[in-house]
């Protein structure tokens, strides 16, 4: 019966017209995503603007050698450590916010809090850079002029003091993203069977105990999946955060430069195409390995949530 239906269907479904409908999208993805994949050979060239893409001389692995001798360690370290901090703190904060939201029990209040916490996620990194500037700049910044003055401390030149930036960037990241990621955890919490909490309550479990022994264990699968996915992307950083918020200040590169800002800097400011292409290819290849590995692990943990 089923087979018959399939056959009938296949007879009526015209592959040609369907392919035609898909064509604009196919062409776009081919251009935007696939042609650049073939362009990775630039990483093995000594690119010269005069000789062009195909005319430039090959130089083997020299770009990579130079990259690993110079900056690779720093940018990879920064990218990994920031992402690690974001994954750990981001998850903890998002879960706390989600649990608190679900305990409010007042729809109107949930709506107000949720809208407010989500708002930064709708702002561009440029605007967030402006906001950070309003707080941090040394002449008119809020922190130097109001906070430090009232505490009687010494003014800090934030945009030239790299030691503070790991904290600043982590804070800004959390400020922008916790509202967003807490939505996903809220959805998982509201999916938990209410009768479990009811039973615990009747047995005399306090709110804290209910959270510790019901909510958090029930969230574990979501946490595991989202964390693994984030680990798959740990070699990529949010370019906007690391470019706009520190205002691309060269004095801060030691603690603010990640692979993505390094590639931008090399390509657009130093015009060193070969080396930035090498860094970008390094990122793509390691990124690819990590995504595939993370997915394999996800599939082991929970087959339904694997990407492929």
């Amino acid at each position, binding site marked *: 019966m089923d087979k018959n239906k399939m056959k009938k*269907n296949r007879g009526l*479904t*015209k592959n040609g017209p*369907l392919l035609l*409908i*898909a064509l*604009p*999208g196919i062409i776009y*993805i081919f*251009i*935007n*995503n*696939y*042609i*650049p*994949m073939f*362009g*990775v050979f630039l990483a093995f060239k000594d690119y010269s603007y005069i000789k062009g893409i195909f005319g430039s001389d090959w130089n083997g692995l020299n770009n990579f050698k130079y990259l690993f001798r110079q900056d690779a360690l720093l940018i990879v370290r920064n990218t990994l450590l920031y992402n690690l901090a974001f994954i750990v703190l981001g998850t903890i904060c998002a879960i706390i*916010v989600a649990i*608190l*939201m679900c*305990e*409010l029990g007042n729809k109107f209040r949930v709506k*107000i809090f949720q*809208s*407010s*916490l*989500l*708002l*930064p996620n709708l*702002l*561009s990194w*440029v605007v967030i850079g*402006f*906001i950070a500037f*309003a*707080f941090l700049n040394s*002449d*008119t910044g*809020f922190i130097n*002029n*109001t906070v430090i003055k009232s505490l009687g401390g010494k003014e800090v030149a934030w945009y030239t003091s790299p030691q503070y930036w790991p904290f600043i960037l982590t804070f800004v990241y959390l*400020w922008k993203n916790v*509202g967003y990621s807490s*939505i*996903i955890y809220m*959805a998982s919490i509201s999916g938990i069977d209410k009768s479990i909490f009811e039973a615990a*309550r009747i047995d005399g479990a*306090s*709110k804290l105990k209910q959270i510790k022994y019901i909510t958090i264990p029930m969230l574990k699968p979501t946490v595991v999946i989202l964390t693994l996915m984030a680990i798959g992307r740990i070699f990529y950083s949010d*370019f*906007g955060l690391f470019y706009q918020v520190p205002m691309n200040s060269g004095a801060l590169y030691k603690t603010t430069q990640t692979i*993505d800002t390094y590639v931008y800097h090399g*390509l657009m400011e130093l015009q060193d*195409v070969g080396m930035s*292409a090498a860094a970008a290819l390094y990122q*793509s290849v390691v*990124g*690819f390995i990590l*995504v595939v590995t993370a997915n394999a692990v996800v599939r082991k943990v929970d087959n339904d949530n694997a990407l492929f």
Partner: protein
Amino acid sequence: MFKLTDEKRFKVFATVVLTILTAITLLPIVLIVIASFTQEKALIANGYSFLPEAWSFDAYYYLINQGKLILRAYGITILVTGVGTIASVLFTTMLAYPMSRKGFKYRNALSFFVFFTMLFNGGIVSSYMMWSNIFGIKNTIWALILPNYLVTAFNVFLVRNYYSNNIHEAIIESAQIDGASEITIFYKIIVPLSIPVVATISLFTALIYWNDWLNGLYYITKSEYFGIQNLLIKIMNNVQFLKSGSSNFLGLGNMNLPGSSVRMAMAVIGILPIVIIYPFIQKYFIKGVIVGAVKE
């Protein structure tokens, strides 16, 4: 009795903590709004402050005087957001629909073709070289629309899953039996049924285009193609840019240039449209986040 107070106590605790977090979230935005209304003199003396000594509309008067530059940037952003979103929705649904059809021969091949872009990419360098050297989009309006955002794997799979779950093969089969062509089926049956998912991806795509500055940063060097975000970057780098950008500003001297408050007024203008439409889109936005996170 004890249980009740425990629960109540927790509710109060949750309210207090969330109120503090909300304050931390909103106050930075409030600060730039207040800063934009602060008199320049007070601002230079005391810095950006929540309680300025003197208020003034100078920054906004100044921006109105510079109207042409800002209006143009707004126009570019609106144009790019409009065209980009419409084209994106069109291309995305058209690509996702055949992928959802069970009888379609190339269904799996197409899915893999789209999916692979989530695993591997050529990186920004070759992408930049291609768009600027082969397609020559530098300093054209296309540079703001074409690279990166038009059709994304994420959106394609979102729409494909929507079609797979919500459109019965039976509807399509009966149309086929009635002799409707595939293209007629798409426009007459599928498009009207797509409204909820189209609303979601339109919202996400429009936000991406409105907030995008990356394409402008890479591909635009001429200020006449600056959208609002790239104008903001330019202004942050150089308040003088506003002066040079307009010739009708020759009457005022440097003393009156409200540099610090103007920056913040510009940022406020940049977020104003989002804040205005936010209450209306918030519901769909949250729905979209949940749908996007839950796979298949």
